[in-house]
């Protein structure tokens, strides 16, 4: 009996991510959920700009590449063109969703667009070489904050789930991580719920995945997973921030 194998919704192509990068795990979770819900043939993904810019190479479903940050706007159009048949998700990093695409994100949430957003937060700009992101932690050393992020000069990190939970629009907001086997299982549950909400016509569902960037954090993959527990999670607490149907509101 096969206990675990690559999901069908991921193709055979070897991913370009750095060794130990958790993007690979998150891609797989999205693909596993597509398999389990049987929606591979009618799913359309929207890829961002960032490390996961080439996500369209790895999924077997149809994919669109959006301009930087505009994935929720593109997804809105695709979903509204055929709301009955299309399942639409965006896969975005923190530079894409929380920086240049903040307006699109907030307004898609406010309109309660019936789309699923997978938000990968690794607190740094990975693709461009490790510059400070809107989500970089106070004191975090990056290429553009070599003495650590100075909040007096650069301001404070943006907590996307907390911020969006203030809106009446979004249906479901949860923050998860993928730094242990247990956490990966939880993350999959959250992603599945986000897709199921869309199938049920409930509306905007965003799952923020606290992720690692061993290369730009300057850590080994193992140290990076520990760093998530030590530094990221105290600042970005995990949990459900909004689940309107269940009446949950943090």
């Amino acid at each position: 009996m096969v206990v675990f194998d690559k999901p069908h919704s991921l193709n055979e192509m070897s991913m370009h991510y750095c060794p130990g990068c958790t993007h690979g795990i998150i891609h797989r979770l999205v693909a596993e959920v597509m398999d389990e819900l049987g929606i591979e043939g009618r799913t359309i993904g929207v890829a961002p700009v960032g490390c996961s810019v080439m996500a369209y190479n790895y999924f077997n479903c149809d994919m669109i590449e959006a301009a930087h940050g505009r994935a929720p706007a593109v997804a809105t159009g695709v979903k509204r063109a055929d709301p009955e048949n299309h399942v639409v998700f965006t896969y975005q990093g923190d530079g894409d969703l929380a920086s240049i695409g903040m307006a699109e994100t907030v307004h898609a949430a406010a309109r309660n667009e019936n789309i699923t957003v997978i938000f990968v937060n690794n607190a740094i700009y990975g693709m461009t070489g490790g510059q400070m992101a809107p989500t970089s932690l106070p004191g975090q050393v990056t290429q553009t904050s070599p003495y650590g992020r100075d909040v007096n000069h650069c301001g404070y990190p943006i907590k996307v789930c907390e911020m969006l939970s203030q809106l009446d629009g979004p249906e479901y907001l949860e923050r998860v991580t993928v730094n242990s086997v247990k956490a990966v299982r939880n993350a999959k549950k959250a992603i599945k719920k986000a897709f199921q909400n869309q199938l049920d016509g409930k509306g905007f569902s965003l799952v923020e995945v606290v992720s690692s960037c061993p290369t730009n954090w300057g850590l080994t993959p193992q140290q990076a997973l520990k760093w998530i527990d030590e530094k990221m999670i105290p600042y970005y607490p995990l949990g459900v921030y909004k689940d309107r149907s269940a009446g949950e509101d943090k």
Partner: protein
Amino acid sequence: MAKLTFKTDNCKGCGLCVDACPKNILQLSPDKINKKGHHPAELTDEAACIGCASCAIMCPDCVIKVER
């Protein structure tokens, strides 16, 4: 009896599976090098494997197939 199959050439040698294994029977091969130039993960004691799939769940590159 659990059986692991490795797509060795996809392995990037990150070692996340090695840390995830509850039985500590995975290692990055000290003498093999794959197509990408990494030391790929391998099983050291096939009989001790319980097929829990923890390694496969943590693998970012879907290298490991688990059968039981």
